[in-house]
């Protein structure tokens, strides 16, 4: 069994609990975390004792999204204005660097065993996508879903549309606004909301039920849903999704982007987030809303 | 800026308020109003000061549908038993109905978000306008319906896309009225607010959108709308368009003749009474038993 540093891998109750384990970074997704997740999935695939996977986050967050500091989203210091291109690079290179055709989420979607998201807290950006790509998703009452990075040059995911319908997806995907567990339930991003202390038990009781059923049957019934949606064009929609990530990340306006970059590099992440999210306070739902 | 006669075009708060402006006719859509609406959308799309569009109706209603007198040509001189206008061949008639396109897809495919602000009646073509907008907020007095299906007209696949086939069929084959609460439940609208908060709610969304770079908004809009096209929406709507032809042409004398005669001899009120009388009370809304 592999040695994991950024995830915890705990077999139990007919399944495995994978905990995203970078609580000091709100479980931000680093290159290494992705690597470890793939290794974990490889391990799970080969282990007949594991009938389903539960994914959750350590601490207050499920995942705050892609790690700004450490991954290739490369908030480069040296964006050359007015071009909006990193110094020394061509537009061709920049665009190409965003066309990584990442198969990470598709691997979750097409996985041969059910993956259950146990959303314990903040699920932001790619963290929200992770939650959405799970086959079954249960939220704790504290869960928050949002894509705040769309506020500064990034794309949403078609999965919000597939699950929530285009009106709900656009209401929240164009502005990055926060939604809480109840709104997520209402629009179809999760199937149930439970008190925080019941979250993992709820998920593992589903795992235990699945474990009573032959694995091939579970796999087939999983694929009736996932491949069925591919048949309905989901694959094409997600292909388009992928390709739209490049323009979303490279089409940057100086007047909007430069102050954010400068805040981040000169004053730090906190200042950057205040600048990015300040105009959007209060949020419509969640801890930063006016409610309660 | 063009001079609009049947709509109002009022830039404000980072967006534009387009108001269907024929309150004396409950904002019934004429050919010229439709033309002005499309022009206005083009104007808004090209204006960098306009970040999003709010579409509403003047007076206390959103829109009562396509103006019977000008758009769908309810000809006086139907020949029975043929069920065709006196001097037209089947070829003429097919051609006529196949070019009667309201081009509502223009709204859906616009590169800036369109937010429907619906209070009061949103009937027939008016209901379709509300459905094709990217985000829809309803006042608590909103009513959605397609009563024209009762006398030889088609519904739209947008009901199915948003509400699922069961809800779409329940209301689309009988033209029954639904209220704001039911519209929210089945997914036609994002939110219901008191009527006096309707425009404020919509423009606060516009202002949030205005904080996000325009190219980002454009891409994230496309992820949803084009994603759905990838899933076959365009094909479904193409079928829709072709099905409107038989819907309008296949008229039975015993149903249609009395309606036409009522309209021409006694006026619209008598016609509506005859058409809708059989369907009273409606399941929801001001004409239901539920209303006080």
């Amino acid at each position, binding site marked *: 069994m592999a040695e994991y540093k950024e995830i915890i891998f705990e077999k139990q109750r007919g399944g495995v609990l994978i905990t995203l384990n970078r609580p000091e970074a709100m479980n931000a997704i680093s290159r290494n975390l992705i690597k470890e997740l793939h290794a974990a999935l490889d391990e799970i695939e080969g282990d007949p004792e594991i009938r389903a996977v539960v994914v959750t986050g350590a601490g207050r967050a499920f995942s705050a999204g892609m790690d700004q500091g450490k991954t290739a989203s490369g908030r480069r210091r040296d964006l050359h204005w007015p071009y909006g291109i990193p110094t020394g690079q061509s537009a061709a290179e920049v665009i190409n660097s965003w066309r990584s055709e990442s198969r990470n989420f598709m691997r979750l979607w097409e996985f041969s065993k059910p993956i259950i998201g146990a959303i314990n807290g903040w699920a932001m950006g790619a963290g929200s996508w992770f939650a959405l790509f*799970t086959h079954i998703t249960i939220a704790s009452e504290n869960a928050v879903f949002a894509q705040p990075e769309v506020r500064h040059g990034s794309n949403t995911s078609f999965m919000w549309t597939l699950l929530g319908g285009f009106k709900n997806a656009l209401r929240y995907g164009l502005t990055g606004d926060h939604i809480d567990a109840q709104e997520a339930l209402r629009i179809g991003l999760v199937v149930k909301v439970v008190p925080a202390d019941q979250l993992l038990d709820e998920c593992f009781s589903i795992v235990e*039920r699945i474990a009573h059923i032959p694995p091939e049957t579970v796999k087939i019934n999983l694929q009736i849903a996932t491949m069925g949606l591919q048949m309905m064009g989901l694959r094409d929609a997600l292909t388009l999704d992928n390709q739209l990530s490049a323009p979303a990340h490279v089409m940057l306006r100086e007047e909007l982007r430069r102050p954010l970059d400068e805040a981040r590099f000169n004053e730090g992440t906190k200042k950057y987030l205040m600048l990015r999210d300040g105009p959007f306070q209060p949020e419509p739902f969640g801890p930063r809303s006016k409610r309660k | 800026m063009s001079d609009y006669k049947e709509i109002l075009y009022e830039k404000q708060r980072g967006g534009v308020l387009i108001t269907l402006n024929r309150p004396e006719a409950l904002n019934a859509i004429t050919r010229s109003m439709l033309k002005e609406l499309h022009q206005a959308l083009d104007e808004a799309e090209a204006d960098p000061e306009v970040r999003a569009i709010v579409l509403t109706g003047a007076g206390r209603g959103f829109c009562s549908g396509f103006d019977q007198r000008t758009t769908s040509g309810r000809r006086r001189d139907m020949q029975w038993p043929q069920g065709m206008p006196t001097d037209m061949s089947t070829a003429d008639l097919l051609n006529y109905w196949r070019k009667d396109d309201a081009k509502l897809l223009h709204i859906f495919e616009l590169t800036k978000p369109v937010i429907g602000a619906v209070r009061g009646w949103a009937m027939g073509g008016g209901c379709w306008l509300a459905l094709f907008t990217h985000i829809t907020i309803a006042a608590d007095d909103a009513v959605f319906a397609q009563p024209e299906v009762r006398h030889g007209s088609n519904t739209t696949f947008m009901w199915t896309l948003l509400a*699922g086939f069961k809800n779409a069929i329940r209301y689309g084959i009988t033209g029954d009225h639904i209220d704001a609460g039911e519209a929210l439940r089945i997914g036609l609208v994002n939110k219901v607010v008191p009527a006096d908060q309707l425009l404020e709610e919509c423009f606060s969304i516009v202002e949030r959108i205005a904080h996000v770079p325009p190219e980002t908004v454009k891409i994230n809009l496309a992820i949803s709308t084009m994603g759905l096209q990838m899933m076959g929406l365009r094909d479904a709507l193409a079928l829709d368009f072709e099905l409107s032809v038989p819907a309008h042409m296949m008229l039975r004398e015993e149903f249609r003749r009395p309606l036409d005669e009522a309209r021409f001899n006694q006026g619209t009120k008598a016609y509506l009474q005859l058409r809708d009388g059989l369907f009273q009370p409606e399941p929801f809304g001001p004409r239901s038993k539920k209303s006080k």
Partner: protein
Amino acid sequence: MSNYQTLLYEKQRHGVLITLNRPNALNAMNQGLLGELDQALAEAETDPDIRAVVLTGAGGTFSVGEDISGDDPGTAWPYGIPEGSSLVHEYNRLRDADRRNILGRQLYRWEYPKPIIGAVSGWCLGAASWLALTCHVTIAADDAVFGQPQVRHGANTDFIWVALAGFKNALRYSLTGDPVDAKEALRMGLVNQVVPKDKLLDECFAFVERVAHVPPETVKINLAIATSGMEMMGLRKAWTLNAELAAMARLTKREEFNKHLEDAKKKGGVEAFLEARDKPFQPEPFGPKAKKSK
């Protein structure tokens, strides 16, 4: 009008009430019943008095699904196919059965020119849930329970659950066979409305009467806008794939999962089989076999 053995066919209020009528078997669907249902629908299709079809079950329950009573041939282990048979024969039989008997009938009802309204009270399980959910409109009584327990013994779900409830809700219940009650069914979008049991048929026929006020060709077209529209979005492709996966699912038998169920059935009939199959899943999350909370 034919005499039906397993159905009731009662014209009324501008429609017809077709009742699955094998109450002693909780309306379990065998080939005889399904064949008669096809006939009844064909009869209703061409009858101009009939503007819509209401489909329900006798004895206060819709149907417990495919009829699994009757003797099964012995299974050769570890192969998991009937003794003396071959894989090619079994697989071919199942593929044809899934495409013709199930998908073929489903598409017939899906593309039917008149609205078919499911009136569901009591149990609506397995293939009967597919029957009810592929109806154009479905009204549930407050005691309705929908579920697909057959997935527990090596059988498939149907894409219609996904088409209505989204993949997350569909998978929550179709990977485990867990039942849902009327309220959860409404929340998920499986049904249009939930009404008190004694109002179920009246609610359905009140709708039929509304439909009857609309010209038939118009109703037919507006029905197609939804149903053919979804086919344009790929539903038919999803269902075609479904049929292939269904045949695979029915061939998926493992000695350690299935043998003891077959033995239970041999010894104690369907009841014993069901008890053995569902025992590990008690209590259910919803329905009569759930833990009563509070």
